[in-house]
């Protein structure tokens, strides 16, 4: 047996420092930092979004909406337009008693909110928030998960959202929950097919499954996805609403018929977790729509190299600008969610299903065929 090497503290410390300053170590540190970043971002979005979703309809209906909760610490005294309302709500939810109905399936009941949170966070990790930057001589991609098959990964993970709905609705032993879950899961799987079909022309046009590569291809705004593949964008936009069970496709909740749908029996922090998952997946889909159809972190009127030159050759600053561009685009889609919710009435269930199966599916297939022929005539 070999003797153990001498474990001198300074030697160990030097070894660790050496490892961390090597390219592999820098990559490791960068990965953790990126994780932290996505984590904070993802936890920040839902409260702000909930606030926006209560203030916006209030203004649309000539009410004030929540405008009381603010800061009151010594000299700092401001209502902040009620921005802290969501924080107060969250704190309240956490300190409430958990009431699990009798006859609920315990394992499934506890598992459903976990699915909601982790599926949303995993997709958030796959979105490129900026172009690759070079730090300490190592190339660092600005997305936690960078795969050659990014598209397929996002596809696979976003399907997991159905599990939340099904498990939550079935396990809580409530007929309204079950009905809501059945409707929602049938709706989500039905709209997943057009969603998949709508992204195929993008793969045909840009010829890659890597999300960052797709963004790089969309330098100027006339090269963006929604101009090159407008039908795809339309289908994707509709599927976005159906996948997140938002109005006008919110039959899963349908307050007037099903109490609250699949999460009727959820309360306290578990309800908050399901809510968090829903809002994060809305944010992630908004980011995805901006990435695929609106040039992601590209500014649109100048190329990335020009932007770097303009910002004194600093890649980090350019990445920051790009990240803000992406956030702005995503914010538009988030606003669009709210806007549509308070504008359009709810669909009927048979209308919803025939829209998905009889209109969007054939349209998606035709779109692929036409795009393939056009690309073939232009390129071959």
């Amino acid at each position: 047996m070999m003797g153990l090497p001498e474990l001198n503290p300074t030697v160990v410390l030097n070894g660790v420092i050496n490892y961390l300053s090597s390219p592999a170590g820098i990559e490791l540190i960068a990965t953790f930092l990126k994780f932290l970043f996505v984590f904070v971002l993802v936890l920040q979005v839902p409260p702000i979004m909930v606030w926006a979703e209560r203030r916006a309809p209030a203004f649309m209906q000539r009410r004030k909406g929540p405008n009381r909760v603010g800061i009151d610490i010594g000299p700092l005294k401001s209502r902040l337009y009620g921005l802290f309302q969501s924080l107060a709500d969250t704190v309240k939810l956490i300190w409430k008693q958990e009431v699990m109905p009798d006859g609920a399936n315990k394992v499934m009941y506890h598992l459903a909110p976990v699915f909601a949170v982790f599926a949303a966070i995993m997709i958030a990790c796959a979105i490129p928030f900026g172009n690759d930057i070079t730090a300490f001589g190592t190339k660092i991609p600005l997305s936690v998960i960078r795969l050659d098959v990014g598209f397929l990964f996002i596809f696979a993970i976003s399907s997991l959202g159905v599990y939340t709905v099904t498990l939550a609705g079935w396990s809580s032993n409530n007929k309204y929950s079950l009905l809501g879950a059945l409707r929602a899961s049938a709706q989500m799987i039905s709209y997943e097919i057009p969603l998949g079909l709508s992204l195929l022309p993008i793969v045909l046009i840009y010829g890659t499954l890597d999300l960052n590569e797709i963004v790089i291809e969309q330098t100027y705004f006339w090269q963006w996805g929604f101009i090159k593949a407008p039908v795809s964008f339309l289908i994707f936009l509709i599927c976005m609403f159906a996948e997140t069970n938002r109005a006008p496709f919110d039959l899963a909740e349908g307050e007037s018929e099903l109490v609250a749908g699949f999460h009727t029996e959820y309360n306290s922090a578990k309800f908050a977790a399901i809510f968090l998952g829903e809002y994060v997946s809305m944010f992630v889909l908004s980011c995805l729509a901006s990435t695929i159809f609106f040039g992601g972190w590209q500014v649109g009127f100048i190329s990335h190299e020009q932007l770097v030159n303009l910002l004194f050759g600093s890649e980090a600053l350019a990445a920051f600008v790009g990240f803000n561009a992406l956030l702005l685009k995503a914010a538009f889609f988030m606003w669009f969610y709210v806007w549509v919710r308070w504008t359009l009435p709810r669909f009927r269930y048979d209308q919803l299903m025939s829209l998905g199966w009889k209109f969007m599916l054939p349209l998606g297939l035709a779109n692929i065929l036409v795009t393939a022929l056009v690309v073939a005539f232009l390129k071959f």
Partner: protein
Amino acid sequence: MNPYVPVILALVVGVTLGLILSGMATFIGPKKVYKKVKYEPYECGVPTVGSRDKMSVKFYLTAILFILFDIETVFLYLWATTFKQLGWFGVVEILVFLLILVAGYVYVVKRGALEWD
């Protein structure tokens, strides 16, 4: 670093966050005396029926059709990535593939599998 290492990390982080969030409900919230009525499913006040009931067969049918068409979509992704290498051969091939797919789709529509009443 293997590009799939962050995937595993993301999985661990996501599940942990989910467990923390839903665990908070169980451990932080108050625990009050058990009352039968309070723990009944929330159903309008009439005697509750629960959810272990029969479901419409339409939902199963939708699920089966979903699996069929979703697999077709995944096949199409493979074709789309190699589209430029395949050239015109790929175009003709996908025409045949879509023809068969549409034939199946038309059959499904004709049999009324997509009708909801």
